[in-house]
């Protein structure tokens, strides 16, 4: 039985000579990367931009309320105190808490008809991370790992999948599941720079370089006549080290002009989204920025007044920035959570977990800007039109990126489609 290998090493079925040849090529590239700042070479950035589609996922950890964002119901008992406002898409209204976004809905499709059924944090985020329900004994890859697997360049010198979290709550590390460890995320929490990406001060640049050359010499001798793709992937991982180290500057917000930083705002979420744009510009296929903590069981309205202001500024700045750089057509911006919040307002003026009728947005790459998909009833209790599950959302996302949503990965002898069985994309959302 053939196994499928996902390491993204230059030659998946490594033959003895094949591997050595490819390795030499990658080595030459990696050596150049020590001086390469992708952003300082506009031509290269242009190339990458054309080739590469990317995703920025704005993760509203804890579960944002659809009522206070994309599906307002003012005047109904469930509607809460905030008004709805018209947008630049005639007929579409959103919450008054998102005034900046109301002027930019031509970039964005709103989905108001998610019914994902699972309303506990653990189950909800696993569902929305993987696009399917848990199955015992199978570690499904998260969305970011699938996108990285599909879009990353085999010999890429930059990260494939980066995750950033608010430093306080809602931290969960994404997983490549049964895909290659290569597609596990680079995970940023405490620091704005990934772990172990910078050279230790105790070793000089030259020594760092030379010992890698010594390692390569040993590795090449060892790999000769050894039919093992796992060994090939080990070498591939080490060959990416210097490139990844060179990408450290991508994480440096100080390199952005003051005006741009002001546009995104002074919050951690703003800075992380600015980094996300820098990463995507350099060709990183998937960046997740999580903003916590939307879990407003008490004081839902105060919570959303504060968090929506941040979301509104940052998301609109991000869309503007991507558009101005000509990147929005190749970058899909998703805003999503593990679920929405209950129509019923509880005794603490909070809203609880609710997965039966909630909202998310897709903007940019492959998306019909201004589309409004699905409908909930007057109270927001149920979906009355265009119901979508997590699998359908994943199928739509894959299609927007020109990835075949029916593509299958083989897990041993078992085919596993990247969007769950029975899932289908929603054409009305797609450009």
């Amino acid at each position, binding site marked *: 039985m053939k196994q499928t290998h996902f390491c993204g090493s230059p030659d998946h079925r490594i033959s003895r000579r094949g591997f050595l040849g490819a390795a030499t090529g990658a080595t030459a590239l990696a050596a150049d990367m020590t001086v390469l700042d992708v952003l300082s070479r506009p031509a290269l950035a242009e190339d990458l931009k054309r080739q590469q589609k990317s995703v920025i996922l704005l993760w509203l950890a804890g579960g944002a309320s659809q009522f206070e964002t994309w599906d307002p119901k003012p005047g109904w008992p469930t509607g809460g105190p905030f008004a709805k406002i018209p947008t630049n898409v005639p007929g579409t209204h959103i919450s008054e808490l998102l005034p900046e976004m109301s002027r930019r809905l031509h970039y964005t499709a709103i989905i108001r008809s998610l019914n994902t059924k699972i309303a506990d944090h653990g189950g909800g985020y696993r569902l929305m991370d993987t696009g399917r329900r848990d199955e015992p*004994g199978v570690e499904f890859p998260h969305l970011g790992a699938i996108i990285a697997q599909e879009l990353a360049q085999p010999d890429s010198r930059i990260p494939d999948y980066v995750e950033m979290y608010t430093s306080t709550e809602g931290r969960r590390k994404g997983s490549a599941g049964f895909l*290659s*460890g290569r597609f596990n995320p*680079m995970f940023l929490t405490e620091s704005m720079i990934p772990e*172990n990406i910078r050279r230790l001060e105790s070793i000089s640049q030259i020594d760092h370089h030379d010992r890698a050359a010594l390692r390569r*010499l040993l590795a090449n*001798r*060892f790999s000769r006549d050894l039919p093992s793709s796992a060994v090939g992937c080990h*070498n591939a991982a080490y060959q990416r080290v210097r490139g990844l180290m060179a990408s450290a500057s991508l994480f440096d917000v100080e390199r952005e002009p003051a005006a741009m930083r002001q546009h995104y705002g002074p919050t951690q979420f703003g800075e992380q989204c600015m980094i996300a744009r820098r990463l995507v510009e350099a060709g990183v296929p998937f960046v997740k920025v999580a903003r916590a903590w939307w879990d407003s069981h008490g004081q839902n309205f105060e919570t959303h007044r504060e968090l929506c202001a941040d979301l509104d500024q940052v998301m609109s700045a991000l869309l503007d920035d991507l558009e101005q750089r000509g990147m929005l057509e190749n970058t899909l911006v998703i805003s999503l959570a593990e679920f929405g919040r209950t129509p019923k307002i509880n005794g603490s003026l909070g809203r609880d977990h609710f997965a039966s009728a909630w909202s998310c947005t897709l903007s940019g790459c492959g998306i019909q800007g201004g589309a409004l998909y699905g409908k909930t009833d007057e109270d927001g209790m149920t979906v009355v039109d265009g119901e979508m599950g997590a699998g359908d959302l994943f199928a739509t996302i894959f299609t927007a990126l020109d990835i075949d949503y029916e593509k299958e990965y083989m897990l041993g002898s078992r085919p596993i489609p990247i969007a769950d069985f029975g899932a289908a994309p929603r054409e009305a959302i797609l450009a």
Partner: protein
Amino acid sequence: MQRPTVFRIIGSLVAFLLALPALGRGDSQENLSSAIDRLIEARQQAEAVSHTGPIDDYAFARRVTLDLAGRIPTLQELTGFVADTSVDKRRQLVDRLLASPDFAYHLRDSLDILLLARKKTDEPWRKYLLEAARENRSWDRIFREVMLPERELPGDKRPAAFLHARARDLDAMTNDASVLWFGVNIACAKCHDHPLVPDWEQSHYFALASFFQRTFPTRTGLVSEKFDGKLKFTTTEGEEHQAEFMFLSGTSVSEPETALDKDVLKEIGQKIRDAERKEDAPPPPQPEFSPRAELVRLALEPGEHDFFSHNMANRVWARLIGHGLVHPLDQMHSENPPSHPELLETLAQDFAQNGYDLKRLIRTIVLTRTYFRSSRWTDASEPADPELFARGMVRPLYPRQLAMSLRVATRNPNGMPGLSAPDQWMSAREKFEQDSTALAARLPIPSGLFQVGTEEALFFSNSQEFHEDFLDSGNEHLVGHLAELADPEQIVETAFLTVLSRPPSDTEKGAVALHLAQRADQREDALRQLVWALLASPEFRFNH
């Protein structure tokens, strides 16, 4: 310093021939090892595939020490073994390792990864496994204790961890138990009959789940069973069925009628709820009829569907040889027959008939010729299919194998007698084991699609922790020891033998000598880079 290859090959053959009558206990086992080789080689001949030659003493010492002790050999162990002139020294090494304290640690770590797979780090559970491994507790007894902790070891929560970690999730309990103990993955059959495997219908899934359905975790970390409850499921045609208690073999049991009256049941129900919720509740009452006990009984019934012994024989084989006789390991069913049916049958039967003795099973496999085939394929043809076992498979190290080997490789070899000073080694091993916990937790568990990620490469390359733990230049460490050696040739030789368990080739000697000579003014840094390059090489990362 090596004897020519041909002599070494003859030497090892002679070793085996001489060894045959030598040990009373060993007789049947070595006959079995030879029988295995005959079956393997017969198929290679039938498919006109040649096999690779045997590995040399260095490679043998590394491979077998990693497999039996869970670490690379120390320099003293390695050189002692290579210099040993006795004809059956390989078998002696195998037996020395099987009797060593390391063997129990490594078996414990292997069983921990197999059964708990880091669902949590549970030190009491690991202590229980270590205790079992030290006395070579039989696999059926471990099975009974882990699957029926409340009846086999009442009040001991250590073996209960397997079920307790899964007890709130019936699917996880059912499928994990089925995969790990029986080699059968029937998760696909939960929602519909298995699409590819006629053996597994939807009713099988629920039949197996019904053995676990009454199991619940107590607040104090134990598990117990409720007195009633039947599992119902809806077929794809929409019909509702009640699941029966039926094992994978097709044998079912029926529950005896109970005559407990309502009040008694109500009282029991309250006690069970208390046990689920309260730290200080008394142990809950146990029902006369235990579905889980029935499952354990059926699984250990001899017969043609002996999933229990086939599964473990196959898993141990795969672990040591690098590819299952049934592969993937959780696909034991009629559509995926073993590559060598007779071999698996023989191994499984021997395992069952000799008291499910894990050590015996392991010893049988490592004494085959198949076990020490070279992994290098120098022939011009395509490498032989893994299921022909014509070449050694390259296997990634498990987290603790790697973490432990990093410790062993980077200490001053003079302070590492290893098994040549067993008493001293015992406490050193225990300490290394503890020191390895944090690192092991961040390393990936190998699976069928295993690839080393960039995270690991970055950790090796740039982390302070790695540099402090493994590249320290103090006297107790390898870098410090190398710095004390004057002769450049000895430095290279020592570094290679200690880290890679083999002497350097001439090319490597030249390259390293040059590296060191160019850095005469920063000798310590140069040595540190040398050791780093050895540790970060794939040769160190894999068992090969």
